């Protein structure tokens, strides 16, 4: 077909019979959302008071953060300092040799001992002192599988304790003996950052954990080798949270949950040291 635009040909004849990506002849990136008048209010940045998503920050003194910045950070740097230490390279994907043409486009082999490539462990300097980045709370409730209204109570309990709105979680697979059905709500999760996180941490270390008689400390075996430490609380322990304690008749059933401390530490040892400095015991 003639691709040159002729005066006598119609546009329909010039139309391509297949989908093509048209070339671009300029260097100006075009954000289509910025051109839509309907999105105008949604595109206001969230730290602007005119935005619908505005949430005031720094509304109270964050003593955990102040303590970390003024005291713990330099202490941790000193404790984790190792002279003349070098970066420990994590095991990476292994490329195939070049001795055979069959190996040319083969996918790289898995790293030794792991399923996916491991990150490098860099020595701790003033740039990468470990810090607590977030606390993730995960509540899985078996009761919610049988009675769906139970999941309302679980979410309310987490919302009361953490001051953040939890998300529902759903079963991913079918396991008949456990009555697990795919797509059925089975608890909730929430990720706490900044002020909510430090508030939750201080409540946990000062009001809740000291009053749990059976609590001997977080297990030293806990950890995912990447500096994230997890432990769990039983339903009996939940009543020590001050938000629950004074309104126990409003919460006839309480639910235990898992708490994961996500840190920027590269190893579990470093993460444990950081958490112990924040008042969490280990055994």
């Amino acid at each position, binding site marked *: *077909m*003639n691709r*040159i*635009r*002729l*005066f*006598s*040909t119609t*546009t329909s*004849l010039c139309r391509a019979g297949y989908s093509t990506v048209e070339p*671009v*002849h*300029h*260097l*100006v990136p*075009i*954000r289509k959302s*910025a*051109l839509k008048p309907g999105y105008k209010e949604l595109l206001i940045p969230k730290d602007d008071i005119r935005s619908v998503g505005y949430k005031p920050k720094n509304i109270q003194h964050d003593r955990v953060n102040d303590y970390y910045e003024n005291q713990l950070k330099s202490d941790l740097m000193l404790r984790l300092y190792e002279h003349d230490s070098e970066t420990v390279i994590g095991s990476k994907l292994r490329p195939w040799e070049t001795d055979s043409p069959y190996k040319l486009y083969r996918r790289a082999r898995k790293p030794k001992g792991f399923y996916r490539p491991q990150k490098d462990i860099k020595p701790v300097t003033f740039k990468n002192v470990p810090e607590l980045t977030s606390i993730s709370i995960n509540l899985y409730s078996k009761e919610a599988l049988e009675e769906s209204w139970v999941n309302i109570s679980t979410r309310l309990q987490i919302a009361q304790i953490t001051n953040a709105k939890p998300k529902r979680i759903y079963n991913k697979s079918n396991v008949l003996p456990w009555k697990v059905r795919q797509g059925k709500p089975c608890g909730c999760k929430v990720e706490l950052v900044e002020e909510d996180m430090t508030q939750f941490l201080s409540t946990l270390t000062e009001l809740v954990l000291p009053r749990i008689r059976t609590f001997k400390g977080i297990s030293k075996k806990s950890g995912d080798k990447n500096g994230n430490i997890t432990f769990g609380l039983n339903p009996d322990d939940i009543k020590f949270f001050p938000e629950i304690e004074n309104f126990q008749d409003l919460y006839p059933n309480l639910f235990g949950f898992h708490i994961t401390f996500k840190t920027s530490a590269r190893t579990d040892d470093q993460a444990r040291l950081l958490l112990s400095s924040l008042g969490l015991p280990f055994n």
Partner: protein
Amino acid sequence: MLRIFKRSLNSGKGIWSNFSNRSETLKVQNIKPHAATYHSPLLIDDAFKSAYEILQQESEKIYQRAQTVEKDDLKDKLLSQAESKNPEVLYNIQNGNDLDITQPVYRNHLKKQWENYDLMILMQRLEQFKVIPDTLPTIQPTVDVKVKFPHITNGEFNRWIVPGEFLPSFLTKQPPTIKLQQFDNYKNESKLFSIVLINPDEPNLETNSFKTTLNFGVSNLSLSLTDDSLDVTKYLKYENGSEEFSMFKSYEPILPEVNAGDYQRACLFVFEQPEKINVDQINAEDFDIRSFVNNYNLSPVGGTMWRQKYDRSVNDVRSEYGLSKGRVFHRVRKPFPLI
């Protein structure tokens, strides 16, 4: 309330209440009073006063740093930065007051505003209607070009046109007002520009294709930040003989004929000239814009476009300009296929 805002702004001895070296246009203009039922947040004035002092001290430091800087663009950036947190400037920007383009802070704000909306619209339309590869290979605008047809003073067309829209022939029969907003002219110097309006969709029956016509051409147009538009007064001066620029092609509206394509694109380009040029021997009927740009060493700095098609005002405009009746194109059926 109104009094407190003004008093806290202009009572101190800081840099922001000193207008000996700073322009008066940085002062706050027309403060709107609160509604009668409005209540301010508690203690906002006390916090505002101390915040104002902190920012003012920072601004003073930036002004001092700007004095030591030699480079124009860096100095402009620092001067803009020094005023960007000034509440008076913020008030003027956010409440639609007239902004003085010679002030770096306002100029940078207008540039950002242009880049975040008008420039994106322009480039989208130039690409969408295939103006860029059909006329010039590409374009990197640095100047905001706005077009308006001032002879119609009421109705829906009394505004700057949006790139790519359809315009009727009765609107485009008179030469337009063209406004060139420069942003990187730091010292408010006069620069030389040339402007062309072309139509790349004129049918060419000999080659069974299209040719480009030149409909308007102006060169040696001297513009600065404040004197920024080619408008009626300049056209009148040109006619009087007190020339400010040279017009190598007087304005001739684009008048599409019946069935001459779906629409015809009016492409207006602005070029910056390194020196004065003398344009002669222009073939307006079959104009080659790429060789024109090469011959006179022009650099494209901006543009805009609109579309036109045959409408009921075309014949009137043709007779006004003393042109013959336009052709009417029909589909000619032939015994053999065209392709």
